[in-house]
C-alpha cells in the first residue's frame, strides 16, 4: 500500500483535522482496487500510516462484505441474502448458484473463473432478488435467468 500514500495524502485534505481514522474505509477501498484484496501487510501499513489501532481496521473489514482478505476469481457473483431478496426467493438463487458452480458461498471455482459470495442489501430491494456480476446489477433474478447468465459467463461472455 505504500505506493498509494500520495493518493491517501490528497484524501486526507478533504477530512477535518483529527479525523484520520475516518480514512480507514476509503483507503481500504483503494487498496482493494489496487491489489484485488486487502493483505496482511496492507493492514499493518495502514494502521501505521493513520495511527489507528489494528482492531479498528479489522472491524471495518469484517463489517463490509465488499472488503475481502483474499483474492477472488475472474468473475465475482454476489447474491443478496437480505430480507427483501430472501422473501422473493434469494435462498433458492443461492442454492442454485452453488449447485451450478460446485462451490459454497465464499468459495472460488477450481478453474479460478467464479467466486460466489452472499452479501447484505444491495439497495435494490424493489427488483429483488438481486445479484451482482462484478460491478453490474442483475435484477428480478429467476433460476432460468441465472442458468442463462452462468452459461453466458462461462462461454467468456464479458463482464455483464
Amino acid at each position: 500500500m505504500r505506493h498509494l500514500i500520495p493518493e491517501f495524502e490528497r484524501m486526507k485534505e478533504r477530512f477535518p483535522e483529527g479525523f484520520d481514522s475516518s480514512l480507514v474505509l476509503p483507503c481500504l477501498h483503494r487498496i482493494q482496487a489496487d491489489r484485488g484484496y486487502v493483505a496482511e501487510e496492507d493492514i499493518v501499513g495502514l494502521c501505521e500510516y493513520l495511527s489507528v489501532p489494528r482492531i479498528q481496521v479489522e472491524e471495518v473489514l469484517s463489517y463490509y462484505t465488499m472488503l475481502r482478505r483474499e483474492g477472488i476469481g475472474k468473475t465475482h457473483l454476489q447474491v443478496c441474502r437480505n430480507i427483501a431478496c430472501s422473501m422473493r426467493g434469494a435462498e433458492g438463487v443461492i442454492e442454485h448458484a452453488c449447485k451450478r458452480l460446485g462451490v459454497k458461498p465464499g468459495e472460488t471455482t477450481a478453474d479460478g473463473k467464479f467466486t460466489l459470495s452472499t452479501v447484505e442489501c444491495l439497495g435494490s430491494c424493489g427488483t429483488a432478488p438481486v445479484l451482482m456480476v462484478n460491478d453490474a446489477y442483475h435484477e428480478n433474478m429467476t433460476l432460468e435467468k441465472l442458468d442463462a447468465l452462468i452459461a453466458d459467463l462461462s462461454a467468456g461472455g464479458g463482464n455483464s
Partner: protein
Amino acid sequence: MPAADGMVVFTASDKVKARRKATMEFITLNHPVDCGICDKAGECTLQDYHFEYNGGASVSRDAKTHATKHFDLSDRIVLDNERCIQCTRCVRFTREISKSNGLGMLDRGDHSIVRPSADGSFAKDAYSDNVIDLCPVGALLAKDFLHKARVWYLKATPSVCPGCERGCGVNLWHRKDEWMLRSPRQAARNDGLDRVTPIENPAVNGPWVCNKARDLPKLLGRVRAAGALFKGAPAPLEAAVLEARALIAEAKRPVAVVSSWASNEELAAFKAALGGRLALVAKRDHEPQPGEVVQDDLLIRADKNPNAAGVRAVLGECGTEVPKDADLVLVWGEGFDFRAVPASAKIVFLNAFLAPENGHADVFLPVSIQTERSGHYTNFAGVTSRFERCFALPPGVLHAEDLFGSLVGNGRGA
C-alpha cells in the same frame, strides 16, 4: 426531546414497563439462558431485569442462534458469545480506559461477535480483568474463578490491594461460614480467596483495579511457614520468642529491617516496643517482576509495596543498608537479601511464607498475613485505607503487632 428544567419524567408507568418487557423479550430472544452453569448467575443484570420486567420464556418460534461458547479471549478470560448481549462495554473499556484497543466487535447484525485484536494487545492489557465486572452478563468470565463457586456462597471483605503503593480498594471474596466445603479434598479452599473485585474509591483507584489485584488469591495463597525454627530445626513458639528477645537484649548494635507490607498499626506497635533500641532500615519486600508493568498513567505504581509511605510516616526516614558493624539483624517480611548481613551477626527473621531463608535464621518466627488481621495502609498520595480480616489466625502463627511487645526485656527469663 432533551431534558429541561421542570420536566417530569415517568420511569415506571405502565407504558414504560411494557416497553421494557418488550426490550427484554428482544434481548433474550437468542440468549442461551444457561444460568445454571453460568458464573454470573446471582449478580447478572440480565437475570435481574428479566425477573423484574418480563419473566417469560423466549417467544421465538425459530431455534436459537448459536455462537462460540468457550472462546479463549486471553490466558485469563473466556468469552461465551451466546451470552453476549453486544452492549460493547468491554470494547469501550479497552478503547477509553485501558487504551489497549484490545477488543472489537467484528461482523454485523446477529453475526456480530466480540473478538480480540489480531495483534494480541488484549492479552497484554494489564487491566483486562475489569471487563469481567463490566460485562452485564456471563459472557466474560475469569478462568481462575470458572465454576469455582456460586457467588452467593461467597462473602466480600473490604480490603486494600498490597500490589503497589497505589493501594486500590478491593473486595476479597471467600466462602461464607454456612457454605464451607466439607470434603477433605476441598476443605483447604475454605481458607483461601476465591476472587477479587474493585471497590470504587475516587480518591485512590476510581472504579478499576489492575490484574495484579485479581491474582492476590495466588500471591496470598502461597505455602505458609508453619512453625518457629532455630536454625532450621522446629522449635516451640514460646521458646523461640524468648530466644529472639534474648538475642536482641544481648546485641550491642542491633538493626531492624522493616517491612513495607506492614500495616500502620504494626509499625506503631514496633515503634513503641523496639523503635528506640534498634537502628532502622526500610525494605522493599517486593520488586517489579519480569513482564510486569512497572508504572503507567492509570493506576500502577513502581513501588510494589503497599505501605512505604506508612513506614516513613511512623518511623521517619530509615536507612537503606544494614550497617557493617551490626551484630544482630531483625528481618521483618520478604524480599531481603541475607548476604547483606555481616557474617558474625545473629539473625531473627519474621516471615509468613515458606522460604529457604527461614531455615538460615538463628530464630525464625511465623507471622500473619493481611487477610488474617485488620489494619491500615497509607498510599503514595497520603490516603490511608482500611483492610478487614477475612480469616482466623492459623495455629502456630503470631501477629507481628502482638509479638513486638514480647521482644522487649532482659535475657531468657520470663
